[in-house]
């Protein structure tokens, strides 16, 4: 059983997680469905077959519904930054300002121009320009996502910045380093391609529903062919980008990797857990077994983490208490350095206030020595640096299982549709009905892995979540949490209801 700490920090954390997870219901469908619409319309443009136009307009309507319901749900997150996370918001303003502004400009530019052509332009502009507009919406939506993921990548691996102790802000030193941060690049490729998988799975689910009811059979089969090809390619690509993302985690956030694999004691030639039941009561430094039951593939974790079979992968205990033999500095040591950094930062502030320039310069010089460990100075115990390994392990493995199923499902649908026997596969169509659910679970589990796995940090190594929060009353956060729950649930119900209505109407109504 998970103990829930109903403190201000955890309510603020829960509220942000809740709104982000709801927002991410809509985003991946937008990212992927926009490209599927572009594919369908390109086929229409090339063949002139009116059936493809009907197919394009049908999926475009569902895309529009999802976009309309989802649009601006991300703004809530920005409200929360200003109110619930004011310390954090102030400190990262210089870093996030540029990426978020570019994201806003992209979104506005696309929505005001090409989006209108996409929906209002049928028979009003040339077929070629209409198709071009659809492609621009797809490309623009995905480029828009780049900037948000650049911001997220920076929190996981803060690069290209310098901390200014006078303004208490992280200031951008190198824009290219922030944009091409390897964590941000792998995040974008992994998250956007998983959006393609989500949308392809959604098309399979709706199409299978038609096939099982014997309705719109030709439209459903044609939709499946394109979605299966796109989904298969995207899901294989997701595997490669996931491997790259995990490698970056191993290099930059080893504690997260240890939690993902439930690895408490580091080892050379570490095995990858193929199946395991994690021991929920296991904590760092205790003598309990990490698993109640597990099956490991020998050496594979070392290979994935370091690209070398016999390499050392640190476990949670090594990272918390240190492992001198393997050259791992423990959190306990980092905490000492971090506390020195914070004390020097405090001395610098006091000296500045009292116009003691020499004392301020001395304090600043001392702060510079340990500033990279600043965040660790806020921890009360070394164990506080450990994320809830059971949640991270289960979420990661759920994502992997779902992510492994999906390419197989897409391949099966592609094979039988091309053989023109998909309607005869009575076992496959019900599987297709659940494909969107599988993809949805993989999406959400992936973000739980990424975000719960990086706890306790808001900015990795620099700022724990508890320091990022505004000192508000817990009650006010609870009230707004309830309000968001109500608003977002209503929006989701509206989306489901309008989509189901349009799916029931089918392509003939478009």
């Amino acid at each position, binding site marked *: 059983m998970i103990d829930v700490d109903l403190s201000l920090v955890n309510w603020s954390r829960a509220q942000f997680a809740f709104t982000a997870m709801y927002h991410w219901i809509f985003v991946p469908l937008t990212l992927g469905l926009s490209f599927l619409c572009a594919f369908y319309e390109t086929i229409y443009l090339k063949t002139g077959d009116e059936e493809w136009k009907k197919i394009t307009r049908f999926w475009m309507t569902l895309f529009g519904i999802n976009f309309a319901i989802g649009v*601006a749900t991300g*703004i809530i997150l920005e409200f929360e930054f*200003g109110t619930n996370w004011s*310390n954090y918001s102030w400190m990262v303003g210089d870093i996030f300002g540029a990426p978020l502004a570019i994201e806003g400009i992209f979104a506005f530019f696309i929505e005001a121009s090409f989006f*209108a052509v996409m929906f*209002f*332009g049928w028979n009003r502009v040339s077929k070629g320009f209409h198709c071009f507009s659809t492609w621009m919406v797809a490309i623009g939506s995905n480029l828009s996502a780049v900037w948000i993921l650049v911001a997220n990548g920076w929190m996981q691996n803060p690069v290209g910045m310098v901390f200014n102790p006078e303004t208490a802000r992280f200031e951008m030193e190198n824009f290219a380093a922030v944009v091409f941060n390897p964590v941000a690049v792998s995040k974008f490729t992994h998250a956007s391609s998983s959006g393609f998988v989500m949308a392809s799975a959604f098309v399979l689910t709706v199409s299978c529903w038609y096939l099982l009811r014997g309705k719109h059979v030709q439209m459903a089969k044609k939709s499946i062919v394109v979605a299966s090809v796109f989904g298969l390619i995207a899901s294989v690509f997701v595997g490669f980008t996931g491997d790259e993302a995990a490698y970056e985690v191993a290099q930059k956030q080893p504690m997260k990797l240890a939690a993902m694999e439930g690895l408490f004691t580091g080892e050379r030639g570490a095995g990858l857990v193929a199946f395991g039941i994690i021991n929920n009561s296991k904590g760092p430094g205790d003598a309990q077994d990490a698993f109640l039951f597990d099956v490991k593939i020998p050496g594979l974790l070392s290979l994935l983490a370091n690209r070398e079979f016999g390499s050392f992968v640190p476990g949670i205990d090594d990272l918390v208490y240190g492992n001198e033999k393997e050259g791992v500095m423990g959190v306990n040591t980092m905490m000492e350095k971090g506390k020195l950094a914070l004390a020097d*930062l*405090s001395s610098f502030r006091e000296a500045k206030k009292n116009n003691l320039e020499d004392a301020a310069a001395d304090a600043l010089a001392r702060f510079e020595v340990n500033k990279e460990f600043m965040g660790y100075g806020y921890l*009360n115990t070394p164990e506080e640096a450990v994320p809830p390994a059971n949640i991270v392990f289960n979420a990661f493995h759920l994502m992997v299982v779902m992510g492994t199923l999906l390419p197989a499902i897409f391949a099966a649908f592609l094979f039988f549709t091309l053989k023109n026997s998909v309607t005869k596969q009575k076992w496959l169509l019900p599987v297709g009905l659940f494909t969107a659910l599988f993809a949805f679970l993989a999406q959400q589990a992936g973000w739980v892995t990424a975000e719960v796995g990086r706890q306790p940090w808001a900015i990795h190594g620099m700022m724990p979540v508890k320091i990022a929060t505004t000192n508000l009353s817990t009650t006010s956060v609870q009230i707004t949490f309830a309000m968001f729950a109500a608003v977002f649930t209503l929006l989701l119900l509206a989306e489901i209801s309008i989509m189901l209505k349009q799916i029931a109407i089918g392509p003939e109504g478009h």
Partner: protein
Amino acid sequence: MTTAATRVLDFYRDGFRRMTVGKTLWKIIIIKLLIMFAVLKLFFFPNFLKTNFETDEQRADYVLEQITRSPVHNN
């Protein structure tokens, strides 16, 4: 110039007029934005630092105080 502007205006006007499911979606968007900006943002989500401090210097000083002597992390 006028003709081009008129054509663009006509394009949008006709587009909005011919909407079917789009009308419902626009209603949802407007209600949603009203709730977000006129209720949530206005009454429940003031920008803490902008509301409570007048200058960036004051804000920086407050945040520095928070991160060097935070009551939360001293729990």
